């Protein structure tokens, strides 16, 4: 089994006050922002690693390879190393100035093409499963996972909070011959919905699906020996019109900072007693359509 995990470096949420936005392009100046692995990406990787250990524990010679993939500037090589240290078997970073300035559409295109290139490089027919974080801590659009699935022609399910790989007809014939089925549960406001789908598919997981493991010193030492590949567009050879800013139909409109300040009004001064103030508050609430 081979699982591809889409991971994204994002500006450190603890340092959001340091983030700069280019007023012209209206994009985050990522070079200056301290990056961390997106928390949802970590959940996606954790889920893949959990499945890996389950698959490998179920039968002695079963192998499950977890591959991490990201599109990001080269300075984020360490984020791929982090994935390897967490337990991924291989990592790929797609990095080229030509990929920069991409919206979700162009990003998902590059990731999908990267995924295809990995299949070719690793001599695989298909990934059995692709897992991504449902939304990143910075952009939070939730577009990329489903767009990648569309580019690759795969079924997809977003907002997944529980994931199982089941073997069809598992009763009595555990594993052998059974077609693996992905059982993915998503939370709606009213209920939990479980979808079942044959491999391969893409699922986008929410942050409540698991608690990612800590990276250990041993994990970091093991990561030294794992393959970490960086591809530029010289490797992928993608049409420049389809990537980066040129390939991005999204155009950012106005940038504005909403005024969230709350002004108070001292009603006791206006009307004297507390009882009068209470009446005045009630009148104001009614005016806003609240209260009977």
């Amino acid at each position, binding site marked *: 089994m081979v699982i591809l995990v889409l991971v994204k470096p994002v500006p450190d949420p603890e340092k959001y006050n340091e983030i700069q936005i280019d007023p012209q392009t209206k994009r985050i100046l990522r070079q200056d922002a301290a990056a961390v692995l997106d928390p949802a990406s970590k959940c996606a990787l954790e889920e893949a690693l959990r499945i890996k250990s389950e698959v490998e524990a179920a039968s002695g010679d079963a192998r499950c390879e977890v591959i991490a993939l990201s599109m990001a500037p080269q300075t984020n090589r360490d984020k791929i190393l982090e994935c390897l240290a967490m337990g991924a078997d291989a990592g790929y970073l797609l990095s080229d100035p030509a990929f920069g300035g991409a919206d979700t559409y162009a990003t998902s295109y590059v990731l999908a093409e990267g995924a295809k290139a990995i299949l070719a490089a690793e001599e695989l027919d298909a990934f059995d499963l692709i897992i991504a974080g449902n939304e990143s801590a910075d952009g939070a659009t939730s577009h990329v996972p489903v767009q990648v699935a569309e580019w690759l022609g795969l079924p997809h399910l977003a907002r997944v909070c529980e994931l199982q790989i089941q073997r069809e007809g598992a009763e009595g014939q555990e594993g052998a011959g059974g077609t693996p089925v992905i059982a993915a549960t998503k939370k709606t406001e009213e209920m939990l919905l479980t979808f079942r789908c044959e491999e391969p598919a893409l699922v986008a997981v929410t942050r409540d699906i698991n608690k990612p493991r800590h990276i*250990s*010193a041993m994990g970091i030492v093991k990561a030294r020996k794992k393959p970490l590949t960086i591809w530029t567009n010289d490797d992928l050879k993608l049409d420049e019109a389809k990537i980066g800013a040129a390939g991005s139909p999204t155009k950012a409109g106005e940038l504005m900072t909403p005024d969230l300040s709350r002004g108070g009004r001292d009603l006791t001064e206006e009307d004297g007693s507390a009882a009068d103030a209470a009446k005045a508050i009630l009148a104001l609430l009614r005016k806003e359509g609240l209260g009977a």
Partner: protein
Amino acid sequence: MDFRFTEEQELLRSAFADFAKEEIAPYAAKWDEEDYVPMGIVPKLGEMGIMGVFVPEEYGGAGLGHVERCMALEEVARYSAGLAMMVFTHHLGVAAILDYGTEEQKQKWLPGMCDGSCVCGLAVTEPGGGSDVAGLKTEAVLDGDTWTINGRKCFITNSHCAGVTVVTCKSGEDEKGRAIMTTIAIEKGTEGFAPGREENKLGLKGSFTGELVMNDVKVPVENTVGEIGKGMPITMKELGEVGRASMSAIELGILRGCLEDAVKFAKERILYGKPISKLQAIQFKIADIRCDYEAARLMTYNAAAMKDAGKVGAEFSMAKYFISEAAVRAARNLSEIMGGYGVVNEYAAGRYLRDAICCLPSCGTSEIQKMIIAGETLKKW
């Protein structure tokens, strides 16, 4: 010259920092308040690779060095210097076994010491005075292939939780009547060997400090760590290098706590309609803490890197001396920046100060460090 950590070391630091933030930070104040030793976290420290960070992989460690070991101690001590004391003393005993132990000893003890199932200790100090190592009295007599050990150790970290303690004993006298020392590993549960009084310390709570009592303890000669009669250089080398670099790292963690808390408080505390960080008097204190912290950082990792490179020198003592004094200074500065809040136990300032003061004697007092530094300086310059 490049003082940057490698990409791998940075990743390691952030891994240790994440762990400390999640598993230590929320509980540190409670451990301090209740003087509770959190033994439950030890297997987790093992899983993280912290217990055996510098032990080769073949014995279950992470196979890294002392720079990485000091990073782990700094991150643990950032939130709990007490817990870091437990880890550091464990490292001290582990280092003695790793550097001087037999292959059998390493195979027998190191895997458990790396995974956190066995805490280690190193016992030197006696009621007769820790500074006077040559005057220690715990006696080991070899009869055939069995040691018989009698004596009492005090101020021993991990006294009440160690599975194995490396004990420095007097095993004879030379022709001039000077003590000959031997280091011997004693396992918990050995007849006649038991922890005695547990100290109620000012700070560094969350780690055991106490007595070890030895009454006719019989230990096989195979438990001798290093050569018979070489206990003094072994003890001095481990205390002097691993010990002092570790204490520096722990005090560095305290310093970082002081710096982070000082900046946070100064920015948030409003006086005269603006944050006190705008007051020059407060800024000067913050500048002092920052300088102490940065100097401490360089000295700690320089000492650790020297250890990794197999170099010797008074730099270990310089680091221990400067940083232990700097940590006390910084904790006092923090406490003053915070005014009344600086002495309220709801905030960590008081704990940092108590912990910093408790670090002063460990692995040699400031006076002892200065004697070593002056000794080397007068010889070399």
